[in-house]
């Protein structure tokens, strides 16, 4: 999986990954603050979206699998201390490429929001 990730990373630029799916974007945002495991990512997404987005296990790990293959996230080699945490947990962190993709996607979304806010329909609502 790591070899595949490396080869894909060489080929693709951050712009080529855009637009991201909502699940992938939320996972990257959750990992933006540091390394985390699956359950913590799920809880983080739930908290940051005010409970409106709940990632299910299949969606979460399907997206994580794709992100690992594309080299946007990395799996940490070391496993948690058995006395402190379950050893079945795998920890993930954002790669450099993942960080740049998140940055590009945030810029794209900001631009979209700016364009949407400039429309007559939204300006009309603001003045009311």
């Amino acid at each position, binding site marked *: 999986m790591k070899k595949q990730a490396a080869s894909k990373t060489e080929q693709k630029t951050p712009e080529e990954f855009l637009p991201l799916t909502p699940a992938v974007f939320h996972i990257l945002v959750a990992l933006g603050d540091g390394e985390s495991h699956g359950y913590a990512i799920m809880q983080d997404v739930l908290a940051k979206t005010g409970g409106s987005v709940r990632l299910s296990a*299949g969606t*979460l790990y399907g997206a994580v699998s794709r992100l690992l293959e594309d080299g946007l996230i990395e799996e940490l080699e070391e496993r948690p201390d058995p006395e402190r945490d379950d050893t*079945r947990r795998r920890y993930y962190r954002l790669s450099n490429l993942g960080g740049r993709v998140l940055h590009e996607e945030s810029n794209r979304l900001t631009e979209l929001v700016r364009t949407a806010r400039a429309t007559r329909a939204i300006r009309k609502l603001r003045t009311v």
Partner: protein
Amino acid sequence: MTGQHLYSALLFLYPKPFRTHFGPEMLRLYQDCYPECNGVRFWIETVRDLATSIPREWHHEFCREDSSIDYTGLADAVMCSIVVGTLLLGWGMLGACVALRMEVPKAGVLFELVTIATAVLVGIIAKYAAARSGVIDTTCSPLISYERTTVRFSR
């Protein structure tokens, strides 16, 4: 069977590479999430999730360049299912007709179908018996690449 055993069994529906890599963590996630949720709601969400994510992962596995899918085994399984299904339907229909003392509809076609299915089943069993005893060295299904089967005659 507890919910955890059932969930663990359902994870077997995912492709093997995915299951091997993420299965233990998904099971751990189940243990984390289940106490928070209402039982019925949790299972409805889980079934919905499995119904979408399993086909997606299989599609992804089929499209991967380094796919580890055993196409030979898959072809054999499909072939066996068709043969056994035909036999069950054929014999079932014959049995029902005999039991109800009815005339067998299209008896000729039914007889041919059952005969062909039986012959294929005998062929499959013979292939596996021969492979097991070492008479033939095959890693391929007789359907998909018969020419790759090497016959070793013992002296």
